[in-house]
Every structure is written in structure tokens, then in C-alpha cells.
């Protein structure tokens, strides 16, 4: 039994790999369709191997449920998953993300008027960005209660520093020549800000915003481990682990992965729209 399982899994692997090697070394390798097909084949191969190994080795679903079981659970529990998504992502992560980003912009623009403050904020901010800020979750849950407000607060603090550092760094990213040109036009602080320095800072700002999308989801989910109402992705994950309903945990992870990619994708899409003039965006067209 064990032998058949490994042999059939290996056969699937070999077949998938053969297709991919053929595709990658073929003449069509640079076509967009093939570029999409190769990682897709790879992912599907892994899923089939997972399914075969779990089914044939009779691994208990308490340890690792097969993909079909997870898909089944996902399809059947859509209302619960949607409620969790709403609580954690929309109320917790999104609110916190917007508050944190707005606060970071505010501080960055205030600090920007003084060279002294900028020099202080850059090192302190990048230092804070590397700290395990998730650890503040129990404190915020105690202060603001276990509903989404405390999660939004954790998320706001987590996304604040990366966005702040990137915005401050971006606002410094104009050359003396460009600023002098604005001065010869007789532009004051705000016209220079809106016409030159903000556009120049946008690639940096979006970099910070994109890093912060993942942080926002992590903050909202992990903060729920410290206390939450009876809804939410972190709550569902920790209680389902307790009930050994691992297929539900995996379904939540699928939701988290979809939400994370969509959130990141949204930011990347807006970036492409707003900074279409930037070399890194132009190359893609």
C-alpha cells in the first residue's frame, strides 16, 4: 500500500515535471499563456500528489485533510467564511490599514517640513518596522475590548512604520536640479509638493502600501488569538484547531490567501494606474 502510494505520487510528479520542462524549454516559453500555464501545472501537480498520498497512506484528516475535503468544506461553509471575512478583513484589517496609512502620511508631511525631523524619523521608523509589533495585540485587546476595534488598532500600528518610512524616503527623492527648476517657476511649498515631490514619492509610497497589505492581514488574524467575539478568521482558526477540524482551518487559510493576494493585487493595480509614467511600470506595456 505504501509502495503504490509513493510510486503513483512519483509518477504524477514525473508527469507534471516532464510537461513543465517541455514547456519551459520550448520555443513558446515566452508567451504569456505558457508563463501562466507552467506555475499552474506545478500547483496542480502538488495538489494531486497531496491527494494521492493522503488517501492511499490513509493519513488521518486530523493531521492533514486531502484537498478535495478542504474544497468541499469551503463550498459548504461559505456563509460562515464570509462572516469571518467581513469581521476580520473588512472591519479589522481594512479599517486599521486606512487609519494607519492616513496617520503615516500625516506624520510624514509634518516631518517633511523639517530636515532635522526627517533625519530622526528615518532610522527610528525603520528600526520600529523590524520590531515584533504583533506583540502589542494583548495590550490593545485589553484596552479596546475584543471586538474589531482592537484589531484595527493593532493593524494601524503595524502598518504605520513601513508606510511612514517609505513616504518620508520618497519625499526626499527629488534632485536639487528638479527643486531648483520649481523655484525658478516661482512655485511655493505646496505647488512644489503636489506637482513635483508627491508624484516623485508615489513609487516609494506604493512600495510601503504593498508591504503593509500582508502585515494588515497578519495583525488582524493574530490579534484574534488574544480574544475575539465568536466570529472572525483568527477565532475560527484557533477554535477549529481545538476541535481538530483541520479542513475548516485550511478553508480559512484559503480565504486568507485569496484575500491577501486580492488586497495586494488591488494596490498593485492602483499603483499601475497612478504611476504609469514610472520606468518600472512602462516596461510592462
Amino acid at each position, binding site marked *: 500500500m505504501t509502495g503504490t502510494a509513493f510510486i503513483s505520487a512519483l509518477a504524477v510528479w514525473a508527469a507534471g*515535471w516532464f510537461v*513543465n*520542462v517541455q*514547456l*519551459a*524549454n520550448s520555443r513558446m*516559453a515566452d508567451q504569456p499563456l505558457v508563463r501562466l500555464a*507552467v*506555475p499552474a*501545472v*506545478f*500547483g496542480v501537480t502538488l495538489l494531486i500528489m497531496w491527494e494521492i498520498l493522503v488517501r492511499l497512506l490513509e493519513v*488521518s484528516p*486530523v*493531521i*492533514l485533510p486531502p484537498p478535495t475535503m478542504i474544497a468541499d468544506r469551503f463550498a459548504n461553509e461559505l456563509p460562515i467564511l464570509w462572516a469571518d471575512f467581513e469581521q476580520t478583513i473588512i472591519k479589522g484589517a481594512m479599517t486599521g490599514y486606512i487609519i494607519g496609512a492616513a496617520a503615516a502620511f500625516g506624520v510624514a508631511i509634518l516631518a517633511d517640513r523639517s530636515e*532635522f*525631523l*526627517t*533625519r*530622526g*524619523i*528615518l*532610522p*527610528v521608523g525603520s*528600526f520600529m518596522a*523590524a*520590531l*515584533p509589533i*504583533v*506583540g*502589542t495585540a*494583548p*495590550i490593545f*485587546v*485589553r*484596552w479596546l475590548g475584543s471586538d474589531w476595534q482592537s484589531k484595527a488598532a493593532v493593524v494601524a500600528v503595524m502598518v504605520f512604520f513601513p508606510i511612514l518610512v517609505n513616504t518620508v524616503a520618497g519625499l526626499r527623492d527629488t534632485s536639487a536640479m528638479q527643486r531648483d527648476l520649481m523655484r525658478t517657476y516661482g512655485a511655493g511649498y505646496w505647488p512644489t509638493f503636489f506637482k513635483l515631490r508627491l508624484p516623485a514619492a508615489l513609487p516609494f509610497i506604493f512600495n510601503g502600501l504593498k508591504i503593509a497589505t*500582508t502585515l494588515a*492581514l*497578519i495583525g488582524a*488574524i*493574530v490579534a484574534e*488569538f*488574544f480574544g475575539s467575539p465568536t466570529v472572525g*478568521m*483568527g477565532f475560527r*482558526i*484557533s477554535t477549529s*484547531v481545538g476541535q*481538530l477540524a*483541520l479542513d475548516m*482551518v485550511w478553508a*480559512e*487559510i484559503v480565504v*486568507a*490567501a485569496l484575500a*491577501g*493576494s486580492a*488586497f*495586494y493585487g488591488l494596490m498593485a493595480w492602483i499603483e499601475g494606474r497612478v504611476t504609469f509614467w514610472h520606468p518600472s511600470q512602462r516596461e510592462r506595456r
Partner: protein
Amino acid sequence: MKSVLPVLTVIGAILLVWIVSVVPMNMHLTADQAQRQDIAVTPDTPAARQDYSGIGLALRNLHLAGATYVLERPRLPSPHQVAVEMWDTIALKKVTSRRSLVYHGWVTLSATLLGFAIGTGLGILLAVGIVYNRAMDMSVMPWAIASQTIPILALAPMIIVMLGAIGVQGLLPKAVISAYLSFFPVVVGMVKGLRSPDAMQLDLLRTYSASPAQGFWKLRLPASVPYLFASLKIGISASLVGAIVAELPTGARAGFGARMLVGDQYGQPMVTWAALFAAAITAAALVGLFSMIERFTLRRMGMAAA
């Protein structure tokens, strides 16, 4: 060196905000306590005080401001209280004691370092595979990039239960999560680094008739070092976060995460705050250590520090 003064100013400003916020944050607790000791408080019933915000209550009871800094279980401890607690648990307790933060720090740090070593090692190997094998590049690279947009930490409780069910406990499950978090930044950074030599440099090696192995050891690997260090610094702080979070949902008995949880559940805010700051100092020390190694290595290799 000329940014020392600005940095100190910013840190001073943060501390000042913290110290000032202690008064309104703790005022309700202080007022309740003062009333029990027959000190005049306006308004004089707890129910009436609930209608005021912390700031409003603080303005009416300025004579109690001093007392907000010495509460035993404050909502927001003042900086000196956290410093005293940290001094007590780091310097004054024996390292083997369960109350010593050094002991808990070592528990978390050992999982972090083990996981970081595993994740970095596998990450470099995969990056080499991706650079040299086109099929691997096209299959794996999109997933490696996409995985950075996914909140991987949500997997932590499940990995621990899974590994626990097959009999793996203690250090290793935490290390697996740490490894997982440091893995992808290293892969993405190293692929970029190994590809950084330009066509001219690769051609030069070809005119020397260098073998692919020589090309790897003498050109690609040295060229990737600055990228490697940038990823290592991201990876080590991600590893630490991973190890801490791994301790949270499982009721671990030791480690920074366990301390935060204990302080939260038993109403001892000082324990949580001390663990939080100790974790922050550890993260800072690790990143600082890697920056130092980076500067030293790059100088020895003749590259300007990035």
C-alpha cells in the same frame, strides 16, 4: 553621526507622549483606589466617573496625577515601571529561573535561530536551483512571489497541531514556522542577487573559458552577497515574529510569546510589557548584528556598504 541628535529628539518625543498618556489612561483606576483611601475625588462615585473620559477626569483630579505612575496593575505602565520590571527579570533573577526573561528569551531565540538557519539554507539552495533550471524558475518563482502576499502566520497554530499529532514537540514546530517565514524573502533576494551580474561580466568569464562551477563560485555567488544580507535582515526579524506567534495559540509554557499570554491572562500588565520590550530589544540586536556582519563582510570583499 550627524543624525544622532535628530534620532534622540524623535525618541524623546515618543517617550514624552508615552509619559503624558499615562495620566489619562490610568486615571479611572487611580481614582477608584484613591477613594478607598479617603482621598477627595471629583466626581465621587465610580458610576459618575465612568461618564468622563480619561482626559476629562485627569483635568478634574490633577492632584492624583502622581499616583497614576505607581499603580501596581496599570492599564498603561510608565516607562520607568517597565524598566524596573525588565531590570528585575533580566538582571536580578537567576538565568535558570522561570521568572527570568533571559530564560524565556533563550527559549524563543533558540527556535528562531534554528528555524532561521533551516529557512536560509533551503532558501539559498532553491534560489540556486531556480537560477540554473529554467523549468524550476517558471514553475516555482511565481509561487514564491505570490506567497509573500499571503498571511502565512495564520498557518502557525495548525502546523503546531499537525506536528504535535505525529509526535514532534518542543523546539522543532516553532523552528518550522520560523523557517517558513524566513524562507521566501531569502529565495526572492538570492534569485535577484545570483542574476545581478550583467552580460558583460558573464561574457568576460566565458572569454577566460571558465566552467559553470567557476562562474558560480567566482562571480554569481560573490555578486549575490549584498542581496543576501538584505534578505537576511528581513528574514531574521520575520523568524523572531514567527517563533513568538508560534507560542501564542498553543499555550506554550516558556518563551516571549508565552510571557505575553501569561501577563494578559493573569492581569499582570508588567509581565506583558517587559516581554514585549525584551522581544523588541532581541529583534533589534539580531538585525544590528547582521548589519555589522554585513558591513564587515562587504568591506573585506571590497564592496562599498550599500
